[in-house]
């Protein structure tokens, strides 16, 4: 028997963050998103630090936290606007290391933006069609020469775009310039454009911002409808607690770049650390 030569120092092994909570129906499926020790540093400032999260393939997840907690930074890390300095992101079981935004989109990530980013000079339908760009494709030459592929592709895109617009009852606005839509409609259009890329995980950055309570109620129904009809996972950042607690199954709370709590709506509502992050420390004598 040859003796095993030991080249390593005694390493202390720690538990790898495995699946945290996912809905029971998703437990035996590959999670659509898995973040492990995800983090980014901007010149020494840890904007996001040791972020671990698992999202099931049909889960509606919430990401909340006070202003400046790093919620949008997490979205930017997931969609590869920023490259993480620590940790990894797996989408549908595939590692996204070294990918760019375009590749992440092709992998099944779609997002909306906190400050709306529509193609404002283009029509509502064309905005949705841009989302369909990689789904219903024909090449440039057949577009210039108007070959049969062009007519077929255009027809398919038109039908699919109207079908998507009907989710929010926006078919009548198809020819309106996107920039001239009211604020709420612009937010809805952004969701539709993201949805058009047929994502596996839809990331919504403050979808209810600027909406009145009635519109928010409708949005909640629509988000659940989208999840049920398309069988996709949705992760949303939102300050409207009514919406978050109403529809999110798993909620993750960020503060100063760190996860301070994870759990269901009830667990989060009663978590003292969360209350402290939002409302400040309770006075001892009170």
């Amino acid at each position, binding site marked *: 028997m040859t003796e095993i030569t030991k080249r390593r120092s005694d390493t202390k092994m720690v538990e790898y963050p495995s699946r945290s909570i996912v809905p029971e129906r998703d437990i035996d499926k590959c999670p659509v998103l898995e973040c492990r020790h995800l983090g980014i540093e901007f010149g020494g400032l840890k904007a996001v630090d040791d972020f671990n999260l698992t999202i099931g393939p049909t889960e509606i997840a919430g990401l909340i936290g006070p202003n400046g907690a790093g919620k949008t930074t997490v979205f930017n890390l997931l969609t590869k606007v920023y490259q993480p300095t620590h940790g990894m992101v797996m989408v549908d079981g595939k590692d996204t290391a070294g990918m760019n935004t375009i590749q992440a989109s092709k992998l099944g990530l779609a997002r909306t933006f906190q400050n709306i980013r529509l193609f404002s000079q283009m029509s509502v339908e064309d905005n949705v069609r841009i989302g369909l760009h990689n789904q219903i494709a024909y090449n440039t030459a057949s577009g210039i020469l108007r070959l049969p592929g062009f007519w077929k*592709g255009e027809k398919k895109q038109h039908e699919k775009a109207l079908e998507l617009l009907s989710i929010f009852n926006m078919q009548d606005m198809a020819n309106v310039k996107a920039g001239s839509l009211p604020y709420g409609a612009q937010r809805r259009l952004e969701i539709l454009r993201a949805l058009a890329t047929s994502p596996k995980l839809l990331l919504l950055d403050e979808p209810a911002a600027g909406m009145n309570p009635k519109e928010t109620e409708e949005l909640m129904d629509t988000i659940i409808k989208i999840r049920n009809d398309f069988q996709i996972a949705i992760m949303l950042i939102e300050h409207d607690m009514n919406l978050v607690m109403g529809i999110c199954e798993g909620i993750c709370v960020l503060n100063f770049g760190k996860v301070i709590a994870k759990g269901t709506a009830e667990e989060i509502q009663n978590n003292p650390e969360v209350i402290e992050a939002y409302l400040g420390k309770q006075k001892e004598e009170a």
Partner: protein
Amino acid sequence: MNKTALISTLKKFSKQYLPCIIVTVFFIICQIMISANAMPRTTKSMLIPVCVYIVMAVSLNLTVGISGELSLGHAGFMSIGAFTGVVMATYSREVFGFSQPLQLIFALVIGGIMAGIMGFLIGIPVLRLRGDYLAIVTLAFGEIIRNILNCIYISLEGKDLHFGFNNNTLPGTQIMRGPTGVTGVKTISTFTAGFLLVLFTLIVVINLVHSRSGRAIMAIRDNRIAAESVGLNVTGYKLLAFVSSAVLAGMGGALFGLNYAVTSPSNFSFNASILILVYVVLGGIGNITGSVIAAAILYILPEELRSFNDYRMLAYAVVLIAVMLITNNAKIKNFINNLLKKNDEKGGETV
């Protein structure tokens, strides 16, 4: 198909291809005038340059208006097309014995391809930049092209083309002589060829804009970050617009070069690029019909103003300023829009 659907398709078609219709109508009017000998000589000599500048303006509009990148080196691509075109026309005449129309087609195609290759090579580094920086770099590239052309000597000996860089002792008959450019060119450009090239350019640009790729180009112009987030290949589509624009400019340049007996690199200076940009801006950025009209009017205007002698360029400048002020005046804009709307409503009633 029922009647209303047919009418609406026709309406959409005519709206999309409006510039083509305008150009065709003008072409027919000009041809009638020429055959009736009703057109003055000076106007007749302007027809081909007008076609060339329409092609230049529409192709630059693809870069500046549709793709949203300010390019100040468009005359550079024109010059590549012009000199390649002249050399190729001479070569194909001497070596292949092509007839004149074939020479012209050959010159246009090769001129376009050469300009396209240059556009591709320049586009790779340039399109990484944005806004003002991109404008400055395209300006520099335009000047570089002109200065390189100043040093190029090309001669034809039997079936061989000789190239020389700053070397004017090439064997055979010289075609291109550095700063002197090309001289004694057989002017084979025709008005009909010019018209067909304009039509070709318009159809290519309009079809591109109203297709999947064109929408992608405009989406990238409107919001680059959002375009990336839905998975558009930003660099690829920017390059597509830039190269298509260069190819069309090269073809326009070839027609230009074959319209004059003498063409030198100094014809394609920075001023020429700015002149084309003025057509685009005045016609409305991104507005193809506007480019066509602006190029035609602004090319003819200084020539027709010759009766003012010394005050010619002053009058031209005043007209430019006046047009800019009028087209940017909200009241006048509203007035025109209301007029157009009323017409539309009337049209709807009669249908």
